[in-house]
């Protein structure tokens, strides 16, 4: 089924990767490395569209169902040991990428494309096996936690047997200690957590099963800058220890602060994947929109061009 190392991929990975050489439509950063000779996560030509009623048709009954494309031909990769940030406007469909990588699909979604994890080609069933274990998701807020269950139990997750339960409990306590959460936090309910505590608990829940890849969807909504940076420091530590992080955010300044590589998301696809250093000098950015992005940074004077916004 999905456990065959793709011939195509193997031959392909046999190329040597230089530090900043252009390969696979992306440039690399210092900390990107190809463990075992391949990308940790690779997505190629992902297309996601939904079957829904045409929103532009004014007559209620004449509206036909059509396939509205949200993501088209998106390709992206994450290396072990790096933070890859996808930057794009809110609500533009970036979260769907996270869902696709986790293998979670809406029932009226049409999804096609290829996903490799750790060099092995995946399908929906194998992604289902991976999620929660090798690929972990860090959600946005406590709204993603069961309001009626104590957080300790939620972080620990579901055990397969008594021994597994023991292991999980130990891991949960170790993680809480590591992130400076008092033991009493275990017995609290989500509504009792402060913003900072919530952030750490959510991260802990992702790390309980020692994943290789973390997908973080807007982990810093509305947080103050220093709280947000602290949130990302923890992700940085995870990456430095050898894991990969796919960070989805709309806040480009934050991404520039903490990521190794940046993917610019616009109009349903990734228009450029590049090392974060490229943003120091706009001439290193290939796509005109990326350069616009650079100019849009307040630090660079809001000097974007004048024409009608897309």
């Amino acid at each position, binding site marked *: 089924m999905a456990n065959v190392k793709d011939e195509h991929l193997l031959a392909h990975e046999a190329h040597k990767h230089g530090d900043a050489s252009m390969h696979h439509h992306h440039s690399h950063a210092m900390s990107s490395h190809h463990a075992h000779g391949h990308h940790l996560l690779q997505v190629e030509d992902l297309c996601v569209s939904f079957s829904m009623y045409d929103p*532009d048709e004014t007559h209620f009954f004449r509206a036909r169902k059509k396939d509205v494309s949200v993501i088209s031909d998106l390709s992206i990769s994450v290396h072990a040991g790096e933070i890859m940030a996808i930057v794009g406007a809110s609500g533009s469909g970036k979260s769907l990428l996270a869902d696709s990588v986790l293998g979670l699909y809406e029932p009226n979604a049409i999804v096609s494309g290829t996903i490799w994890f750790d060099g092995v080609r995946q399908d929906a069933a194998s992604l289902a096996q991976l999620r929660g274990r090798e690929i972990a998701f860090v959600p946005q807020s406590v709204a993603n936690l069961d309001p009626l269950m104590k957080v300790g139990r939620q972080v620990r997750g579901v055990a397969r047997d008594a021994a597994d339960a023991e292991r999980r409990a130990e891991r949960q306590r170790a993680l809480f200690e590591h992130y400076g959460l008092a033991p009493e936090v275990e017995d609290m309910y989500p509504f009792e957590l402060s913003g900072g505590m919530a952030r750490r608990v959510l991260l802990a829940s992702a790390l309980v099963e020692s994943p290789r890849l973390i997908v973080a969807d807007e982990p810093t909504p509305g947080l103050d*800058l220093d709280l947000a940076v602290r949130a990302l420091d923890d992700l940085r530590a995870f990456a430095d220890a050898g894991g990969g992080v796919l960070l989805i955010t709309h806040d480009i*300044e934050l991404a520039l602060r903490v990521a190794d590589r940046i993917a610019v998301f616009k109009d349903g696809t990734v228009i450029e994947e590049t090392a974060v250093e490229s943003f120091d000098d706009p001439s290193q950015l290939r796509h005109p929109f990326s350069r616009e*992005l650079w100019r849009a940074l307040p630090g660079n004077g809001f000097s974007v061009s004048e024409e009608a916004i897309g």
Partner: protein
Amino acid sequence: MRKGMQKMLEAKDISFAYSGGRVLYDGLSLQIAPGERIALCAPSGFGKTTLCRILAGYLKPAAGSVMVDGSPLPLRGMCPVQLIGQHPENMVDPRQTMDSMLAEAGDTPSELLSGLGIRPEWRRRHAHELSGGELQRFCIARALACAPRYLVADESTAMFDAVTQARVWRFLMRWCEKNGAGLVFVSHSPELIDHVATRTIMLGAR
């Protein structure tokens, strides 16, 4: 009491508490002069949104008052302070089309719409048929079409991508300069504040 002929938006001795008893402000005062662009800074959860709503007349403070040019905020008629909120989907009637929503503000000059990048075909749509960014542009247009003397923007550009954000802020700054309006805004981005604000007000912890 009219305090001379000084033109400003003033919050005098505002006190506000949640109905559970938690006190938010006690005797808070601030002043904004026309043409100023004030950034409101405070730690998370400090109630910046509540303050914005009080300034725009959406909430009544327990004590103190908000004055525009020496007179309190009017109860009827067009309010000289307009609010652009953080969640555009809450600020728009889900059953209205964008056209009728803009009509409520009065005449909306077309430069306003094109300057904010609003496409004409979006005007026929309802709120749930637009993305957050598109909807927010309409909310901004509506606020500006009211020709307010003071604008309060509560993290209003958080949902835009950087390019749109830049264009919108540029447009806003120019509009405020041209019309001599004052601007109060909340933002989490220090770079944005650096670039946009003429003055920063820190709300201390209590």
